[in-house]
């Protein structure tokens, strides 16, 4: 029956899962890394999983564990996590009108489940479909649950594998390598390159500063340099 509301919501959830599927292979290596690198620092598998459960945001998880391993101060860890996750403010602002009338718990869960991937498919599909709130929530939930489950599974699997991999494999080095790939992927313009170079140089100059402050200074200097460069060009 096409007008059975439950059937309809179920099919929206399935539709969300189907839309999410092509984006899943990309998160598998990342999830495994998020699981085994903390273990290579000496954290337990559960400690490694805690980041995936509580944060559910890949790049910032890697950063948090790397900084904890370097005994960075709590403020530096939180500022870095906030900086890496600032983009979610934009996603959240852009997706909010579509979920505004949902109840509190749904909105909170939607916030927790927000990822680059679910944002991408909802941002693409909400405006082109005439769905009511329930259908939009079902679509969001379908896609989110799928990626959440896979992310948790990959982290736990990675953490267990990490426990049996010997120290000399140096798997923790995959964290800076991952950031390197992510960073190089953002160099869309001269201004982005300026931001990146400045961030790297200031961070390098500040390597010996206490509490990993060089990292924060590098981030701030890089952002300013990018903005200034763009202003000067336009």
């Amino acid at each position: 029956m096409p007008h059975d509301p439950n059937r309809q919501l179920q099919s929206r959830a399935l539709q969300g899962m189907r839309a999410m599927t092509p984006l899943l292979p990309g998160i598998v290596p990342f999830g495994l890394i998020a699981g085994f690198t903390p273990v290579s620092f000496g954290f337990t598998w559960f400690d490694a999983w805690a980041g995936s459960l509580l944060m559910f945001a890949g790049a910032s998880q890697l950063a948090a564990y790397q900084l904890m391993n370097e005994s960075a101060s709590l403020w530096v860890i939180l500022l870095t996590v906030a900086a890496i996750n600032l983009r979610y403010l934009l996603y959240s602002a852009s997706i909010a009108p579509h979920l505004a009338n949902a109840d509190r718990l749904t909105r909170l869960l939607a916030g927790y489940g927000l990822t680059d991937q679910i944002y991408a498919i909802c941002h693409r599909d909400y405006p082109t479909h005439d769905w009511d709130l329930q259908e939009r929530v079902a679509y969001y939930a379908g896609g989110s649950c799928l990626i959440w489950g896979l992310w948790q599974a990959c982290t736990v699997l990675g953490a267990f594998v990490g426990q049996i991999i010997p120290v000399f494999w140096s798997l923790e080095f995959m964290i800076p390598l991952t950031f390197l790939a992510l960073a190089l992927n953002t160099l869309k313009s001269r201004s982005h390159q300026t931001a990146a170079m400045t961030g790297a140089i200031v961070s390098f100059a500040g390597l010996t500063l206490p509490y990993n402050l060089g990292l924060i200074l590098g981030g701030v200097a890089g952002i300013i340099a990018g903005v200034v460069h763009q202003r000067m060009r336009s």
Partner: protein
Amino acid sequence: MTEQFIWAVALAGLVTLFLKSAFIEGQHYFQLPQWFIDALEFVPPAILCALVIPGIFKGDVGLVREFGSVPIDPKPIAALIAAMTFLTTKKTVPTLLAGMASLYLVFWVQI
């Protein structure tokens, strides 16, 4: 699990949840100021590059901790090769493999 670790992860989780749900939660959404959106563009390249640096220049990898140090730290060279791999392939997995392989190689030729 140390108390410090629990605090760090729990607070990092709260910060993340706040950023993710700030606008979904708020009933009244307002437009983010344009200067903020402009600056946001440059947060990923700046912070990610700033993060790469200590990972490349600070501390010892497992190889060194296990087998002792070598004259030239293999991390920066491995990172350079990984960077060149990414710039040519635009793919993450080959980049990681190239970086790890060069790390082992640059360490191995020095022992």
